[in-house]
């Protein structure tokens, strides 16, 4: 199906997810259009990561519908691998495969899932690694890299399959403050190139700069969403204000 032309890339309606009695997501609605950068903010435990994991079908949802590229992917009959091969995901803890070199990490999915030849996959990977300043690290194993380099490598790994949607789960949360910048610069470049992204983040100034819309999650619900200049400076909800007061440096 190719009814994406014009329509949203990703559409979430009434999403609900619970672990036993504990409801982690409820009544979540989200629309992501091509070239959107949607930032999910909220305190830890508010459901940001779970939402991203639901979008990538790493978690089964308990109710609601997720449509991606015009097709419902929350249907149990859907081929999860096919859906995931069109999405990229980057995790907080990098999750690079320690037994493979950086280059092998980046060429694994293109070669084994997308059927690219070794030469093709390596060329693309090297080009992206070069672009992200990792050209010298291609032959090393991930554990020999700094945190920032590892996370950049993880980004490259996700980008190597040319996903139409990139999910980033607090990708700077495990980094030293001075390494956060190098990763965010890349995400910013990606945003400028028009990459569609949904990202959970604690970096408010970054969200202000790159987001096309910001969603504030509280106890599993999207309490408020809007353009960053409005939501981050003049939120409607008291809870949002309270949260922002805690995380934003006093101006």
């Amino acid at each position, binding site marked *: 199906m190719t009814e994406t032309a014009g329509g949203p890339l990703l559409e979430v309606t*009434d999403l*609900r997810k*619970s672990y036993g*009695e504990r*409801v982690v997501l*409820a*009544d979540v609605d989200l629309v992501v259009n091509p070239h959107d950068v949607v930032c999910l903010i909220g305190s830890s435990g508010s459901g940001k*990561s*779970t939402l991203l994991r639901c979008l990538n079908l790493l978690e089964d949802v*308990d*109710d*609601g*519908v997720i449509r991606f590229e015009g097709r419902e992917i*929350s*249907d*149990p*009959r859907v081929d999860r691998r096919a859906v995931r091969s069109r999405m990229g995901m980057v995790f907080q803890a990098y999750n690079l495969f320690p037994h493979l070199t950086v280059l092998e990490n980046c060429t694994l999915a293109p070669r084994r899932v997308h059927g690219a030849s070794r030469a093709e996959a390596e060329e693309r990977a090297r080009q992206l690694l070069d672009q992200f300043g990792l050209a010298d690290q291609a032959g090393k194993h991930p554990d020999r890299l700094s945190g920032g380099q590892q996370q950049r490598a993880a980004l490259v790994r996700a980008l190597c399959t040319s996903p139409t949607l990139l999910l980033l789960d607090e990708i700077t949360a495990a980094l030293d403050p001075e390494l956060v910048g190098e990763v965010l610069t890349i995400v910013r470049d990606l945003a400028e190139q028009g990459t569609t992204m949904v990202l959970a983040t604690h970096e408010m100034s970054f969200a202000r700069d790159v987001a096309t819309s910001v969603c504030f999650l509280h*106890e599993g619900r999207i309490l408020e969403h809007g353009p960053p200049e409005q939501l981050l400076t003049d939120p409607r909800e008291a809870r949002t204000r309270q949260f922002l007061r805690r995380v934003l440096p006093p101006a």
Partner: protein
Amino acid sequence: MTQPPAEAATTWEPSPRELERREIRRRLRLRSTVIATVAVVVAFVGVGVLVVTSPGWPRVHEAFFNGHHARASLPGIWSAFWLNVKMFLVAEPLILVLGLAIAVARGARSPWLVPVRLVAVVYTDLVRGIPTILLVLLFGFGMPSLQLQGVPNSPIFWATTALVVSYSAYVAEVFRSGIESIHPSQVASAEALGLGRGQTMRYVVVPQAVRRVVPPLLNDFVSLQKDTALASTIGVFEAVFVARDYGNYNFNYTPYVVVAIFFVVLTIPLARFTDWLGRRYSERERAGAR
């Protein structure tokens, strides 16, 4: 529903779409169950039919699955099997202790312990290289000839000793791989707390290592249970010996099948126990982790 849930939980009703999805999931599950059942039936019935229709089946049935001989040999095998059980019940704890000691000794860093390390290395290299049956023969026939004072000279004693020597070499390697799989950061954080090397091993590394190696340990123990049959080579009247004796006397192999069933029945509870143990560990330690 004892706790007052959030207001959403009380008002939430699954949407029609969700109900439809559950129906689809149910159908998919049903389909896998049907496929699994058909696959199992086809595979097992197929093999069964193949065996039963083979030209030699009547003779095999008579020689290996004879009800009369099974009943007749049962009491003898039953009492002899206790000997196998006793042998491995004695051997298993000794093997665990000795194996762990060797594994830890190999990792010792103190210069005073270099001889211990050397012995540990030579022990595993040498003993693992010798077929268990040869160890049993060497111990069973060689040791009594030394005429040592204060040690029993019974074949059971030496057979068990041979098994302990042989298997503790294997088990030591299993423990060592477990110890080496513990991330160095665990050692670093234990040492940062001021624990000594020995304490680090005792309280941090070994407990984690043991958990990881439970499945391969079980493997070795199942193997050990079966290898108690090797004691028959030096004249211990255990279950396999009894079965062979009966078979030779009555020209029927059914007792072998009976002994095989005994061994299988013995190993299954052990496998279930390790599964349970592993599940308990992971439930306790990963509770709440996503």
